């Protein structure tokens, strides 16, 4: 127990995207769930392999867009009808077709802000410190190397057996991640 607490997880390094995806699939099949894979570019098969498919960004964007639409139209309506009505030749105050451009722009604006801020928030960024950066080789994860992490909190995690399992995956290097 004490030996387990002192480590954040085990990290295996692979030299190709294919090896990483294959390893991720086998790790998931083995029953590990507190896992993560790191790659220098997006690999769709990699997040499918560990079962990551977060649909909340889409929801955030939808909510942002609806709020933007209401805010944009509400602003035009409130200003033109309630706060500052100008009677020009008896034309209707709520001239909604001329409010559409502003409504559209504010919809896109808030949806885009929701998209980016939501994505960063769900990813937990900005995060200046993370244990994975303690592995010296990990600086290659943003350049040309591929990593698989099994966290110590995973119920199946066992320092010896997990390391043996990782060796069987064809990892080029296995490192313990300091917490």
């Amino acid at each position, binding site marked *: 127990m004490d030996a387990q607490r002192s480590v954040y997880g085990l990290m295996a390094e692979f030299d190709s995207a294919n090896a990483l*995806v294959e390893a991720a699939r086998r790790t998931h099949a083995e029953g590990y769930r507190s896992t993560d894979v*790191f790659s*220098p570019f*997006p690999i769709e098969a990699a997040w499918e392999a560990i079962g990551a498919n977060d649909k909340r960004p889409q929801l955030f964007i939808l909510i942002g867009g609806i709020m933007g639409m209401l805010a944009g139209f509400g602003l035009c309506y409130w200003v033109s009808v309630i706060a500052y009505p100008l009677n020009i030749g008896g034309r209707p105050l709520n001239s909604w077709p001329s409010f559409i451009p502003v409504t559209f722009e504010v919809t896109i604006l808030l949806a*885009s802000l929701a998209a980016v801020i939501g994505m960063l928030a769900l990813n937990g960024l900005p995060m200046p410190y993370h244990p994975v950066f303690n592995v010296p080789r990990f600086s290659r994860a943003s350049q040309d190397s591929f990593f698989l992490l099994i966290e110590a909190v995973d119920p199946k995690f066992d320092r010896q057996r997990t390391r043996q399992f990782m060796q069987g995956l064809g990892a080029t290097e296995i490192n313990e991640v300091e917490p």
Partner: protein
Amino acid sequence: MDTPAPHSSYQTPHPVIEPGHSYDSITEKISAIVLTRRHPIGWFATMAIGFLLVNGLGLSVGYLLFKGIGIWGNNIPVGWAFDIINFVWWIGIGHAGTLISAILLLFKQDWRTSINRFAEAMTLFAVACAAMFPLIHTGRPWLAAYWLLPYPNTMGIWPQFRSPLIWDVFAVTTYFTVSALFWYTGLIPDLATLRDRAKRRWTQMLFGGLALGWRGSARHWQRYETVYLILAGMSTPLVLSVHTVVSFDFSTGILPGWHATIFPPYFVAGAIYAGFAMVLCLAIPLRRMYGLEDFITMRHLENMAKVTLVTGFIVVYGYAMEAFFAFYSANVYESFMLKNRAFGPYGWTYWLLIFCNGIVPQTLWLKRLRTNTTWLFIMALIVSVGMWLERFVIIVTSLHRDFLPSSWDMYYPTRWDISTFLGTIGLFITLMFLFVRVLPMISIFEMRTLLPEAKIKGAEGH
């Protein structure tokens, strides 16, 4: 797969990335421009010119604020001149950046990858140059706050939401914000690469801070890719809406030559046309200066040339339809507008415009000229001039002779008009070349995905 068949006259298209590259060589080549390489003499020379012109801009704007907009040549009846010509010109140039980064992404055009980053930067800087004009043309930008923005002020005054000028404010600010978000989102993984490659403490801190702690986790990539694609999907109607709204500034007016339903599509096509020309203008020298021929290959230049040719045709169709509407309307003011445009005192600008936008791009039919970088660069400059003239023709020739001959007059720009315009070109060049110096001008992580070893076995075709 890419080897040409020897017995066929069909030539396989040039690859989007030259063979022989690896993850590491791509990373090294692009990040070295920012981190380690010495900068070519061309960088310093261009930067010096840009900086000189920026100083001219500072002087011109300073004198404008001191003296007022009387230092410009526009006066009734030509109440709008260089200020709005330059505004429309710059904002149009910005459109190609969004087109390349968003629309070509949705169409899965992989040749966009090596040009999207600096095209997006170009968008931001062009929109910044454009946005200056509505602000400074008020002469009192500090008052523009309540003219432009709806905020509760002690006078109880609100903007008129039925006016295209207010739509413009919302369209341009939204466009700038969304372009900036899109650009920064695309930069995050590359900033992490720079953080991990930087040798000096302060560059590590700088890029580390900007990278927000990005670590390339697949869970992050999944949300990132989802959001990036949806942002592209939202930017596409946005970019179309921006120039549409800009064209409404004119087409909702009743002036002959402005009051036309063709304006929105005609303006959007012109924007893409001008923008692609500007991307060529920037890509060709940068590619040579930094030896990026492996990443910005002939395929990219040729494709951009083809887009220029096609959108050039749409623009020419617009000119033809303007003339046809004027003739077919049987309206005396409309047909006078047409005659005045072609044969009036500013007739030479109209024919020069037809030459620049209608005739010169036709040389792109020839593969020999389309693949000649020197000619492409010159052609792109001519197109930029042509698009500037288009806005001059629309704005000045329509305004200077409207319905009543008693109110006709001529318009001549002053030296301050010209120095302000040149100043924004300098600002654009300066920002662009600073960007090339401090941030990766090609998306490193997206270039990696173009390599054959990035294709996953057993995953259906991506």
